């Protein structure tokens, strides 16, 4: 029992990331009809927004402290971040400590602008081209983005810690009345799960309850008719692209403390997210979310020793295996609509 | 006994009875038109005939064999060729290649791996395809890229692709839909020409009465998924039941 709860919890954070990326992919695919292989790069850029902000906040100047000496006997140089000198040591340290959550605010305008530029500058010209061309050009873009990041930030992962307040772990066992110290779970992962739930809820509410969202949903169902009604659907779709980029970016920002950002993390997540989208059903938002969590949890279950001893290597392939089975038995995925990407 | 026998076919989509007890018999060497107002079930019936839909009950026999449960390519191999509303051709291929493909399908069946063979070695097929192109007055367009042709020429090419298979039954799905009057008349002439040159059975699903009365030997009127009458064209014209079914649409 406790092992099962632990695995479900373990699957949640990865599942949340899958769900968020897949949600953005589906938004783009459903509205614009574009298969975006550069979506993983957006997730990666989000993570690097957190890295960047924490670097900016840590910008320091050096002062010489005559009262102390370093081990060579020279006067010690002390680095003081500008933030601390402006806001006072305590507030300043707190701001630096909270760099990752603060990056949320920092990243939203960046991600939205990147989304707009991508859509207006590149993707727009590919609406009428075959899916293969869309895949190829966005694949090229993904390579470019990841190499640019690699050029500026290097090839090594950059640890980006969560605020001190979230560094511990939460004891679920004690909460549920089982043995303490059996089901412990890092606070930040809980935060990540809650955060993604809020984002997913927000996106759904936005599409469900605003006029804007209604038009977009109508456009997803039948683009031509909506166009005939005299509604400028293209402009809204550009905004949707920005939104999808922001969702991917936020997923990346908050993921930075879980997985130290590196330049190829986008590609790693992209392949899995595509599998998630296909399992959920191309063009179905609830399907993307459901499949994201489902596959995340399945992945964590399959890495249990009991299961691994039964099926060696199952943890390595479970997601792909599930995808293959689903695609062959339910070609439209779990919740796919009819006629999407079918020949 | 007709070459195509449809008996007691029913098809439901949820609460909608798309086809209700359809019986139909198409005699050899006739042109049989199936007409009816919108939503009468013409398209559903056609999709049953080509294996795209499987009816809930009933039987469809072609040339003594059931077509139900067979895939479209298997039904084609039985001798049913189909012309679509908008011409379906191989746009990336030349006109000649478009006609060669059905020649291969007719001779070699559904699959034959001939990966190192030479196209030039297929003398009999090349002759056959070229003769077909002469028959439909397209031999001068032989090496043209088929996607760049006019719609009328595409229609002509599609007919050629079907006819070169020497089908026992040619199904035409609204062959003049969306065409201008002049193109429609051209298509009628083409079909008449084809009929005059060879023995062929045709079943036409059509909306345009002008086309139907110029070509058909026999007409079945569908209404609300059920055949209303089946008769010769001259009797259909004056039939009060037919007028009633079409009332408000073309009467």
């Amino acid at each position, binding site marked *: 029992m406790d092992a099962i709860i632990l695995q479900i919890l373990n699957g949640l954070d990865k599942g949340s990331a899958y769900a968020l990326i897949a949600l953005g992919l589906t938004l783009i695919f459903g509205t614009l009809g574009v298969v975006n292989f550069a979506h993983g790069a957006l997730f990666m850029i989000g993570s690097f927004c957190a890295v960047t902000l924490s670097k900016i906040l840590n910008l320091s100047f050096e002062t010489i402290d005559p009262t102390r000496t370093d081990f060579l006997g020279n006067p010690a140089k002390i680095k003081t971040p500008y933030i601390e000198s402006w806001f006072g040591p305590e507030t300043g340290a707190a701001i630096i400590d909270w760099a990752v959550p603060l990056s949320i605010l920092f990243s939203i305008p960046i991600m939205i602008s990147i989304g707009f530029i991508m859509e207006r500058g590149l993707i727009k010209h590919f609406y009428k081209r075959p*899916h293969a061309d869309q895949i190829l050009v966005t694949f090229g873009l993904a*390579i470019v983005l990841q190499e640019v990041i690699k050029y500026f930030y290097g090839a090594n992962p950059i640890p980006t810690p969560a605020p001190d307040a979230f560094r511990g772990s939460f004891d679920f066992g004690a909460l549920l009345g089982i043995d303490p110290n059996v089901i412990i779970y890092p606070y930040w992962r809980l935060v990540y799960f809650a955060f993604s739930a809020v984002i997913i809820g927000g996106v759904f509410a936005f599409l469900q309850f605003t006029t804007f969202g209604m038009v977009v949903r109508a456009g997803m169902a039948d683009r031509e008719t909506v166009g005939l009604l005299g509604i400028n659907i293209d402009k809204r779709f550009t905004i949707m692209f920005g939104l999808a980029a922001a969702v991917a970016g936020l997923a990346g920002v908050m993921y930075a403390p879980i997985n130290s950002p590196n330049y190829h993390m986008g590609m790693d997540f992209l392949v899995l997210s595509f599998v998630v989208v296909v399992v959920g059903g191309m063009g179905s938002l609830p399907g993307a979310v459901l499949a994201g969590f489902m596959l995340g949890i399945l992945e964590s279950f399959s890495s249990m020793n009991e299961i691994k001893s039964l099926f060696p*290597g199952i943890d390595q392939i479970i997601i792909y295996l599930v995808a293959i089975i689903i695609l062959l038995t339910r070609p439209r995925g779990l919740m796919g609509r009819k006629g999407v*990407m079918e020949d | 006994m007709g070459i195509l026998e449809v008996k007691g076919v029913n098809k439901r989509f949820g609460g909608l009875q798309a086809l209700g007890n359809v019986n139909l018999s198409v005699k050899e060497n006739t042109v049989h038109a199936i007409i009816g107002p919108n939503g009468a079930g013409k398209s559903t019936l056609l999709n049953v005939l080509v294996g795209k839909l499987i009816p809930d009950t009933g039987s469809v026999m072609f040339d003594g064999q059931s077509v139900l449960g067979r895939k479209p*390519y298997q039904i084609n191999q039985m001798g049913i060729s189909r012309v679509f509303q908008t011409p379906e*051709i191989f746009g990336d291929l030349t006109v000649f*290649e478009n006609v060669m493909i059905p020649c291969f399908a*007719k001779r070699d*069946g559904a699959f034959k791996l001939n990966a190192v063979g030479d196209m030039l070695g297929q003398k009999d097929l090349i002759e056959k395809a070229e003769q077909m192109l002469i028959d439909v007055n397209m031999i001068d367009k032989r090496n043209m890229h088929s996607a*760049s042709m006019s719609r009328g020429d595409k229609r002509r090419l599609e007919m050629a692709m079907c006819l070169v298979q020497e089908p026992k039954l040619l199904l035409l799905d609204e062959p003049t839909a969306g065409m201008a009057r002049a193109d429609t008349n051209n298509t009628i002439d083409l079909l008449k020409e084809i009929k005059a040159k060879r023995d062929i059975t045709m079943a036409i699903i059509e909306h345009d009465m002008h086309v139907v009365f110029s070509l058909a030997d026999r007409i079945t009127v569908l209404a609300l998924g059920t055949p209303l009458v089946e008769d010769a064209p001259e009797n259909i014209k004056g039939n009060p039941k037919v007028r009633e079914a079409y009332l408000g649409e073309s009467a």
Partner: protein
Amino acid sequence: MLGLTKKDATLLLVVAVLALCAPFILNPFPEGSAMAQFNAGYPDLMQRFVIFGIFAIGFNILFGLTGYLSFGHAAFLGVGSYSAVWMFKLLSMNVIPAIMLSVIVSGLFALLIGFVSLRRSGIYFSILTLAFAQMSFNLAYSVLTPITNGETGLQLTLQDPRVLGQSVSETGGIPVTSLFGIELRSTYQMDLGAWLFQFNVGYYLCAVMLLLAFYLAIRIFRSPFGMMLRAIKSNQHRVNYTGLNPRPYTLAAFVISGMYAGLAGGLMASMDPLAGAERMQWTASGEVVLMTILGGAGTLIGPVLGAGFIKYFENIFSKINDNVLHGWFSLLPDGLENLIVGVLHPFIGKGWHLTLGILFMLVVIFLPGGLVEGGQRIARLFRRGKADQTDTTTKPAE
């Protein structure tokens, strides 16, 4: 000639001359001169050109003819490499049985994956092939370690049985790959004035294989089977209603292209007898897609050009560093020199992938037909210049 039309025979002849004279053609600059860094006529690089050329030709038979975009083709290359190395371990160092096994095993593997993946088309097919390839990659790293030797990669050892050969060579080392006794690594060096030309047995084996592969590809493109594949790409709906079953046709194309990939993998292992799982990774699959598109998908010569182009520039660009750039621009004023070097810096050396990505995007955006289309456009411009407005268009507008 050989059942080809005059045009195709000429093409084959051109490729043959290029491949056989490559050690000369690719070494135009004298040894030791400043331009010598642009030479590509050394065995290792030439082998890579040819091997990836074979890989891309095979990929093009699937993608170029049927339009099915496989994102998992590197899996077949990897399987081919593993099979060949196992043959070297168990049987002998002769490459012929090893390459034969590579082709057969990859073909069977492709039959299995193709049978399942081809039940879907479009993006679903791409994802299915991607999923299978990633599965193979992950398995090669984990459970299949006894067969693949995991992260280290499969290597030859002195303890290998090699029943028809010898476990240990006369000199006490691991024996080298050979073609009926001729060592593949043996190279004849020809000094011609300032020039140095190298003729390597391994390269010529690869070149002959390339010519065979290219010849077969021409035959397939021009055969009734090739025409059926193009028909399937053009309008699958019509194929069904013409009495043809598209599934076995696409499966045959998939298996053939898988066997090409296996051949490439086998050759790769023959040149350097080790095999690692990274050859199966999806980025490796992306690379072959890139080569094919860059050269021109659906054309005969395109994939070979694309493979050569990418491998050549990968090699050259990765070798250039800031010092080399400073050398080139040393004649300019210092400030300008530094500026130019600074601007070029991200694109060279380790930044080669950035250049590649940009190049790739530019090709897809502006030249969907790849290098071949680019060449045709230039040729048309020239012809128009010469004949002065003779109508060269054969396709009338709609």
